[in-house]
């Protein structure tokens, strides 16, 4: 065993020399060095195991026959366990020692705790989402009030009152001719009455506005027309009566 160890140490030292002299690359050096170190550790562990077994009075090579049947990995693990048990932690008893089992226990506990934390975090996340979730409908159809205002208001347009009363009485008296018998008296009575009454128009919306203005225009026109009619009517009437009286007077004159 010590031969192997010495050999390994020698190889490692030659590896070191080769690396320092630049014969091998750093990558190869690290690879071989780690490999040799592993082997060296394995040899050390084996030596320690043998020493312990010899101290316990057991055979120095109990697994010689089993060596071929057991995988090398299990053996190595067993050796490491023994080293751990009797060299690294010599004061601990077997029950407390089983680090693998203890580690397994811790791992299980840790897993349970991790799952608990994840469950709590998940629950907290879901709760946060529910709190932030807008459960209200996108369009709230519940009517809470009445709105009376409108962009098409009812506007009452009040036009200022204008009253125009023009009444004139004109009496024309034409001079009589020299002939006294032919006295001609012409009397004309002209009466003009123009009255514009209050116009109150309630309009709502544009169409009503436009119709109201046309209504106003029409009524004004009507008023004017009727005024003219009345004017001409009275005038003609007056004229007629005047003629009548004239003719009457002339008749009278004739008589």
């Amino acid at each position, binding site marked *: 065993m010590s031969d192997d160890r010495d050999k390994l140490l020698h190889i490692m030292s030659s590896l070191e020399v080769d690396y320092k002299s630049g014969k091998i690359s750093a990558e190869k050096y690290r690879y071989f060095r780690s490999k040799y170190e592993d082997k060296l550790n394995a040899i050390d562990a084996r030596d320690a195991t043998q020493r312990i077994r010899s101290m316990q009075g057991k055979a120095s090579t109990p697994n010689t026959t089993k060596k071929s049947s057991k995988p090398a990995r299990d053996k190595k693990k067993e050796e490491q366990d023994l080293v751990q048990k009797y060299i690294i932690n010599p004061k601990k008893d077997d029950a407390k020692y089983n680090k693998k089992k203890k580690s397994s226990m811790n791992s299980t506990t840790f897993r349970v705790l991790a799952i608990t934390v994840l469950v*709590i975090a998940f629950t907290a996340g879901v709760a946060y989402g529910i709190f932030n979730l807008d459960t209200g409908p996108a369009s709230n159809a519940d009517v809470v*009030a*009445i709105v009376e205002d409108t*962009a098409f208001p009812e506007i009452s347009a009040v036009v200022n009152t204008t009253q125009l009363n023009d009444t004139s009485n004109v009496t024309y008296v034409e001079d009589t001719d020299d002939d006294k018998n032919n006295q001609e008296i012409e009397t004309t009575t002209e009466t003009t009455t123009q009255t514009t009454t209050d116009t109150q128009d309630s309009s709502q919306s544009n169409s009503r506005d436009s119709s109201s203005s046309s209504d106003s225009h029409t009524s004004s026109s009507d008023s004017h027309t009727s005024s003219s009619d009345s004017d001409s009517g009275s005038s003609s009437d007056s004229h007629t009566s005047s003629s009548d009286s004239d003719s009457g007077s002339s008749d009278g004159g004739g008589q």
Partner: protein
Amino acid sequence: MKNKIIIAGIITLITVIFLVSGVSADNNNTDNKTTIQTLSKGGLVIHYPSDWGVSQAKSNYSIMSISKLNSIDGAGVGQVNVNVEKKPVEGDFNSFVNSTYMSMPYDSAFNLLSSGESIIGDRQALEYIYTSNDNGMEREHKAVWFEKGGQAYVLLYSAPIDQFEQNLYVFDYILSDIQIR
């Protein structure tokens, strides 16, 4: 030692989770006061604060209307409100809108304060501000008109004069955020 560190870490993590949950819930409660509601009708989508509610307008031209909740009087009328209406355009849009306010100078109950152009979304709009007097109650109105598909749309914000300015920001927010589809 390692286990203690793990346990301490777990406890710390749980504590942090609870703290974050508490702060989130607190923020959530705060947000409840200022959540934004959505109202979508007639090709328009508006967003408004949750202290306003959907209302029923008396106008036949109304598409949708909202009122400020604390302005609703005993008769159920929202004194501070926004009413969205539409009406087919007769003739030219500008003339159509102007004709609405043409008669205002002749009615002592109305007083046209200002008029001008503005933009709503990516559309040209006309803006009118006027006051009205209804049975001695002075109200101020801001109407923003725009045309879409042969229809004249108008958003009318109305409020008592003393509450007009302080709630105008909601109307401005609605105008800035409106979606016209």
